[in-house]
């Protein structure tokens, strides 16, 4: 690899546990709480859980290993890692990495806003607002969202992220080693407690009993797939960045497996903490269960904590929002790390790289804080379309642009022996995964076009400009990436 591009700033994980906590902090985010439980409850309960298990095996673990391998063998972040990793189409590979970093950056532009909301609610949970007699959850959320105050709290989150990522892997793994175990055990506590509530069995039925018609409905499988991919965090470029943190004896299969099981454990526990609670406390469980995202986290759940009341309501709300915010914040600064890593690879000091990307994210993200339509827009263009393309790139690079068998051998020769022995099944599953996002994308279009109707979603005023931005932005990234690499090589 005489032509390899070498990062100017090299960081290595201080220990295996530090690495594991940093990467699981990435996977477990706000979506484990407010997305998973809603999707599981509304897309077939047990059927959804079954589909989730299938996708974990076929796609999540396999592609996580592939993405880590790009960073580990390529020895660099989203810019240098893919370039060094592939044997042919190197310029395309560098573009693919930067495409992911771009999508992730655009997601960061609204993720700091979301993290700020959760932080604000955590403060209310601490101060006991939810259990005070005159609490009104709709009024609290209505008076807070889209205000300059919420913008200010979001900015505070971004400042926190600049500080953490400014210390590089040491800052990231230190924060994760404190926050992840707390959120894990807090969620476990809530899950166990909610099972003891009267009437929780109705919730368990809704959450865990498979429905035959849902099992054969493509929507169940697609919702489960997108939840798995989004939740574990594949094709955002983070595993490339984290692969470059690995020391010679660190094991890719251990951290990939760690991502899969820790993320799933937290999501499934969060489902147990939320769904039986709704059925136990709420007078209108079938309406409340339909609420997703902000409606669930900021209107329904605080109302339920209020109805629980007393010490139980206070503690439930406190543990929930502490876990929820820890999950969001550990994802915010790892998202940040993906976007600043190309700058670090080029030689810009971590704190400067963090500040530059952080400030730009605040500027670009400000509209999403003041108007939630913008947030949905960013979420659709980069969160759905941008990341789907990233998935194809990962499978393409690891399955077709290198000798996949050689990559596997390289990962397997680590001492001490790897946790999960990879066989030729891994090579094949990586290659097969090239088509999975394509199927997903066709389904997604078909869903809006044929099932929901022509003007339901895809053809709203903003979708086509969004696709135009992706194409123009992609071409610009391709051009700039090529120029940067030419300059670095000279």
């Amino acid at each position, binding site marked *: 690899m005489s032509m390899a591009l070498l990062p100017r700033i090299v960081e*290595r994980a201080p*220990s*295996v*546990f530090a*690495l*594991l906590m940093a990467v699981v902090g990435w996977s477990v985010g706000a979506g484990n709480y407010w997305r998973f439980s809603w999707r599981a409850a509304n897309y077939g309960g*047990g059927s959804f*859980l079954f589909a989730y*298990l299938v996708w974990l095996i076929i796609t999540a673990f396999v592609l996580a290993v592939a993405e880590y391998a790009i960073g580990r063998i390529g020895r660099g972040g989203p810019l240098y890692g893919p370039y060094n990793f592939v044997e042919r189409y190197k310029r395309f590979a560098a573009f693919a990495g930067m495409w992911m970093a771009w999508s992730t950056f655009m997601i960061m532009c609204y993720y700091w806003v979301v993290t700020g909301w959760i932080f604000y609610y955590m403060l209310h949970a601490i101060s006991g607002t939810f259990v005070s007699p005159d609490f009104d959850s709709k009024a609290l959320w209505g008076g807070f969202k889209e205000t300059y105050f919420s913008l200010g709290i979001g900015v505070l989150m971004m400042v926190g992220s600049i500080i953490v990522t400014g210390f590089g892997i040491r800052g990231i793994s230190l924060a994760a080693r404190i926050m992840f175990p707390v959120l*894990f055990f807090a969620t*476990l506590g809530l*899950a166990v407690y909610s099972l003891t509530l009267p009437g929780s069995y109705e919730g*368990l*039925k809704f*959450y*865990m*009993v*498979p429905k035959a018609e849902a099992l054969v409905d493509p929507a169940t499988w697609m919702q489960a797939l997108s939840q798995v991919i989004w939740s574990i965090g594949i094709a955002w470029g983070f595993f490339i960045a984290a692969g470059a943190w690995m*020391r*010679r*004896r660190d*094991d890719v299969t*251990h951290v990939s*497996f*760690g991502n899969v*099981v*820790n993320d*799933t*454990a*937290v999501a*499934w*526990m969060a489902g*147990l903490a939320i769904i039986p609670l709704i059925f136990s406390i709420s007078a209108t469980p079938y309406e409340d269960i339909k609420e997703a995202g902000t409606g669930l986290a900021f209107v329904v759940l605080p109302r339920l904590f209020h109805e629980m009341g007393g010490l139980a309501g206070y503690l439930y709300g406190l543990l929930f929002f502490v876990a929820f915010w820890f999950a969001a914040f550990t994802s915010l600064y790892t998202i940040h790390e993906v976007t600043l890593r190309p700058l670090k690879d080029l030689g810009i000091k971590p704190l400067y790289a963090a500040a530059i990307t952080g400030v730009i994210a605040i500027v670009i993200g400000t509209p999403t804080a003041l108007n939630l339509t913008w947030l949905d827009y960013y979420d659709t263009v980069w969160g759905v379309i941008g990341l789907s393309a990233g998935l194809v790139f990962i499978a393409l690079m690891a399955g077709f642009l290198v000798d996949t068998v050689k990559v596997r051998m390289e990962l397997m020769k680590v*001492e*001490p022996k790897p*946790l999960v022995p990879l066989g030729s099944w891994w090579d094949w599953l990586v290659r097969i995964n090239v088509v999975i996002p394509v199927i997903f994308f066709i389904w997604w279009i078909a869903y809006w076009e044929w099932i929901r109707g022509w003007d339901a979603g895809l053809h709203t005023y903003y979708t086509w400009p969004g696709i135009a931005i992706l194409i123009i932005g992609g071409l610009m990234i391709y051009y700039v990436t090529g120029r940067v690499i030419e300059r670095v090589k000279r």
Partner: protein
Amino acid sequence: MVFEQVSIAFFLIVTAIFVILALYTWYYSFKRESEIRRLGEE
């Protein structure tokens, strides 16, 4: 209904298995770290 109870029991057990596996990956980190220390050099 038996089917309900069996499926709830099944997925509760699967959830518990994920929790145990997650904690195992934490434990494995420390085990691996001491192995790495024993093998020496980085």
